[in-house]
């Protein structure tokens, strides 16, 4: 709340009064951004691990067929 009032006291960054979207952006606590970042990283690494698995399986098949 204190931080919110600080922003409004230094409103020079806005050309006009902040829109409803801008206000909700400033007010929201942004935890969703942290969770989203962690989810992106986890899903990315998971996909990469699956791709590594496939490469390893192909390699194992290649060795077995020799």
């Amino acid at each position, binding site marked *: 709340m204190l*931080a919110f009032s600080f922003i409004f006291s230094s409103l020079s960054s806005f050309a006009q009064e902040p829109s409803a*979207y801008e206000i909700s*952006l400033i007010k*929201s606590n942004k*935890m969703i*951004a*942290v969770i989203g970042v962690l989810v*992106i990283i986890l899903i990315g690494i998971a996909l990469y691990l699956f791709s590594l698995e496939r490469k390893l399986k192909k390699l194992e098949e290649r*060795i077995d067929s020799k």
Partner: protein
Amino acid sequence: MEKFLKQTWWKILAIAFLLYAIIGGLLVPLAGTGSGLAFPNMPILNESIRNLLYHVPMWFSMVVLLLISFVYSLKYLSNSNPIFDNYANTFAQVGVFFGALGIFTGMLWAKSTWGAFWTNDPKLNGAAIGMLIYIAYLILRSTIEDEVKRGKIAASYNIFAFIMYLAFIFVIPRLTDSLHPGNGGNPAFSSYDLDNTLRLFFYPATIAWILLSLWIAGILSRINALNIKLDEKGE
């Protein structure tokens, strides 16, 4: 390198530090909401300051991986050992992967703090150009059949690529205006971190993500090395 990649100790360290970074990074409250350990409570950033522990290390990992790729490209130029070429190639690939993670996580964070997924900003554009430089390296490799020729040309390109990459993501953004923290006259988060609480988590987190990236790169390079060995034995 080969021996290091097969060791276990640093992998356990990576997971331990990663757990510390995730559990601590999410549990430590923002300043002003209780006594004790707290992260800086900045307007607009709010809880998303925690992303310092997750978004930023993606880029540190990429730089470390690309540095290793660069070193092996240098080694390959003086001694055409296919092992060196394999490391150069593989570490560049995984470097691009972590760069992609850095860009996507950055876009999400940007949306929540700047209101847009992307801005016309030197740091952001520099990071995108850096990615394109290395994607070009990977494409260049795929166009050449002959192994030694491919290795030499790719290694030469890599030397140039790494230097340009550092210029685009570190040097240029600091020379001009930028929205991104740490560039263009903006303070980095360290200036808000007056009691060093962020650092208490940021340093282990960075080490953890770097080690994790080395682990992934190591697994891929060992798979590629085995395929190369099988190719050499002929079948």
